[in-house]
C-alpha cells in the first residue's frame, strides 16, 4: 500500500513520557535497557571468553580479576552472565516475537474471517492450550532432541494460542464498529480493513502481554536448561549455570547466587515494564497499583 505519506501509528503521543513518570515503569525500562545492551554488546564488554577453561582458577570468589568469581571449570562468571543475557533474551524475544506474529495473524483471520474458519481456528487454539505446558515441552524435546531451535519451537507452540485468542476477541469486538462499517461502505477491501484499520487498533494489549510473557519464557528456558533439556551445556545459559552451581553448592555457593541474580532482575524488569505499559496504554484496566 502506498500510504507512506501519513503516519498511522503514533496517535498516542507521550507514551514514553508517561512511562518515565511511573517509578515502576521507569525501573523496568532501565533494567530492560541494561540487559538488552548486555546482550547486544556482549563480545565487547565481557572481560573473558565465556567458555574458555582455566581449571587452575576454579571456584574463585569475586575478586578484582573476576568480578563475579569463577565456576567449577574456572570460567569467568561475569562473562558467562553477559553472554547468557544474549542467549536468554535472544531466545525469549525470538520465540515471543514469532508467537506474537503468529497469534496476530491467526487472531485477525479468526476474528474477521468467515464463521467456519473462526470455529476451526478456535478449536486449534483451545486444543493447543489444553496441553499441559511442561509435559508438552518434554514430549517435543524428546522427539526432536534438546537444543535452541527445539526450545523456540516449543515456546511458540505453547504460547501463540493465548495471543491469537486475545487478538481474535479484540477483532470481533471491532468488526461491527461503525468505522469498520464505514470503511466497507466506502468499498475498502478486506486487506485494507485488516491491515490499516483493525491491526493498529488491536496491537496495544498484545504488546503488553508479550512484554509480560518474556520473563515467563526466560524462566522456562532457564528451567529446561537446568534440567539439561534446553541449551546444550558449554553455552552460557543462566539455567546451565544454575545447574552447575547447584552441583557445587557446598564448595562454592556464590555460583548459584551469581547465576540467580540476572534471572531475578530480568524477570522483574520485563514484568515492571509490562505493567507500566499496561497502565500507560490502557488506563481503564486494573487501576493504579499505588492506591
Amino acid at each position, binding site marked *: *500500500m*502506498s*500510504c507512506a*505519506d*501519513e*503516519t*498511522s*501509528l503514533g*496517535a498516542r503521543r507521550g507514551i514514553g513520557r508517561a512511562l518515565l513518570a511511573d517509578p515502576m515503569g521507569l525501573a523496568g525500562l532501565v533494567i530492560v535497557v541494561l540487559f538488552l545492551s548486555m546482550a547486544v554488546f556482549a563480545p565487547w564488554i565481557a572481560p573473558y571468553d565465556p567458555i574458555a577453561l582455566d581449571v587452575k582458577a576454579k571456584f574463585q570468589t569475586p575478586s578484582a580479576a573476576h568480578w563475579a568469581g569463577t565456576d567449577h571449570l574456572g570460567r569467568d562468571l561475569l562473562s558467562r552472565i553477559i553472554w547468557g543475557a544474549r542467549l536468554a533474551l535472544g531466545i525469549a524475544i525470538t520465540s515471543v516475537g514469532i508467537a506474537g506474529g503468529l497469534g496476530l495473524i491467526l487472531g485477525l483471520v479468526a476474528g474477521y474471517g468467515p464463521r467456519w474458519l473462526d470455529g476451526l481456528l478456535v478449536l486449534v487454539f483451545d486444543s493447543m492450550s489444553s496441553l499441559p505446558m511442561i509435559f508438552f515441552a518434554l514430549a517435543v524435546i524428546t522427539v526432536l532432541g534438546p537444543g535452541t531451535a527445539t526450545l523456540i519451537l516449543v515456546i511458540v507452540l505453547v504460547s501463540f494460542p493465548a495471543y491469537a485468542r486475545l487478538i481474535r476477541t479484540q477483532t470481533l469486538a471491532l468488526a461491527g*464498529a*461503525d*468505522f469498520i*462499517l*464505514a*470503511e*466497507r*461502505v*466506502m*468499498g*475498502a*477491501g478486506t486487506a*485494507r480493513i485488516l491491515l*490499516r*484499520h483493525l491491526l*493498529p*487498533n488491536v496491537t496495544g494489549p498484545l504488546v503488553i502481554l508479550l512484554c509480560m510473557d518474556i520473563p515467563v519464557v526466560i524462566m522456562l528456558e532457564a528451567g529446561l536448561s537446568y534440567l539439561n533439556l534446553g541449551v546444550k551445556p558449554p553455552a552460557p545459559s543462566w539455567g546451565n549455570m544454575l545447574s552447575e552451581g547447584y552441583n557445587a553448592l557446598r564448595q562454592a555457593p556464590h555460583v548459584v547466587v551469581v547465576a540467580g541474580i540476572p534471572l531475578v532482575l530480568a524477570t522483574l524488569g520485563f514484568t515492571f515494564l509490562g505493567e507500566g505499559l499496561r497502565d500507560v496504554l490502557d488506563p481503564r484496566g486494573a487501576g493504579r497499583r499505588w492506591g
Partner: protein
Amino acid sequence: MTAVLDLRALSVDLPLGGFLTRARLPILCDVSLSVGRGESVALVGESGSGKTTLARAVMGLTPISGGSVFFEGQRVDGDLARLRRNAAMMFQDATASLSPRLTVGYLVTEPFRIHGLPLPDPAATARDLLARVGLPPAIARRYPHELSGGQARRVGVARALALDPRLVVADEPTAGLDVSVQAEVLNLMHDLRAGMGLAYLVITHNLALVRHVADRVVVLYLGRVVEEGPTARIFAAPAHPYTASLIAAEPKPDPRRRRADLAIRGEVPSVLRRPAGCEFHTRCPLVRDLCRSTPPDLVPVGDGRQARCHFADQRQDKQGERHAVDHR
C-alpha cells in the same frame, strides 16, 4: 430519467438464533421507494421501524432476502463496487465512524486510495475537501478523538463527498449535535446539494429536519411503508393515522395547538409478534373492526401520495374540512 436509487419490494430478514431452527425474523417487508436525481427523500419512523436496517441493506452491509436494489438503473447484485464508488453514507455517530488511529487528512482522502484513483498531492486534496465543509486545513493533522461532534460530522461529510457521489445516505445526520451546529450541518448539506446535484436519502425521526431538507417523505412502521408522498402535502394533511400521530407528537411552540385526540398510545409492538390485520391497529386512535382482521394495502390517495390505511380516503376529506375551518 432513471432514479438514482430504486428499491423494489425490498425485504430483509434476520435469522433468529435458534439451534437447528431456520426461523427468520422479518425486519423490512416489501419496501419500495425511489430517490430521483438531486432529490432529497426522508425516511421517518420510530426506533425499531427498520430505518437503519434499510440504510445498511441499501449499502450492502446487511444481506437482503427479497426484492432488489437498483442504482442508476442497474441492479446491484453481489457486485457492490459501482454503488460504493458513487454512493456514500453518513453514519449516525460521526466520531465512531472515523478510524481512530488515522489522521483526518488520511481519512478524508481514503476514498481515492480505496478506489485506486490518482491522488498526486494528498495534503492539497485533503485541504480542498476540508475547505468544502468549512474546516481549516490544520484539522488534517488531528485524530478523530481530538474533534468536536460538529467537526467530526463535517469530516464525515467531507469524506462522503470526496468522490463526488450521486447519492448520500445520511443516518440521523443531526443526532447528538446541539441546535446551532445542527443548523450549520443542514445548511451545508443543502448548499452541497444545490451545487452538486446530489440526491439524499435521509433517515431520521426528527420531523423538523424532514421539513427542512426533504422533498418527499416515506413513513415506515414495523418495516413497512405506511405512507409516502411530497413533504408539504403530508405535513399539511397526513393520510395515515400513524403519520398524523407522529406529527401531533412533535413539540409545538404553542402547546395549546397540540392535538390530544391524535396522541399515540403505547409502545411499538414487537416484530416477533406482529399484530394481525393492520399492524397499526393496536395503537390507532381511529381503529375499527375491519382493521383488526384485514391488512390494508398501500394505495394511492391522490396528490402523488400513497397510504396503507382502509380509511385514508374518508379521512382525507375530513381533514380537508378541518383545515378549512382552521384557516377561517
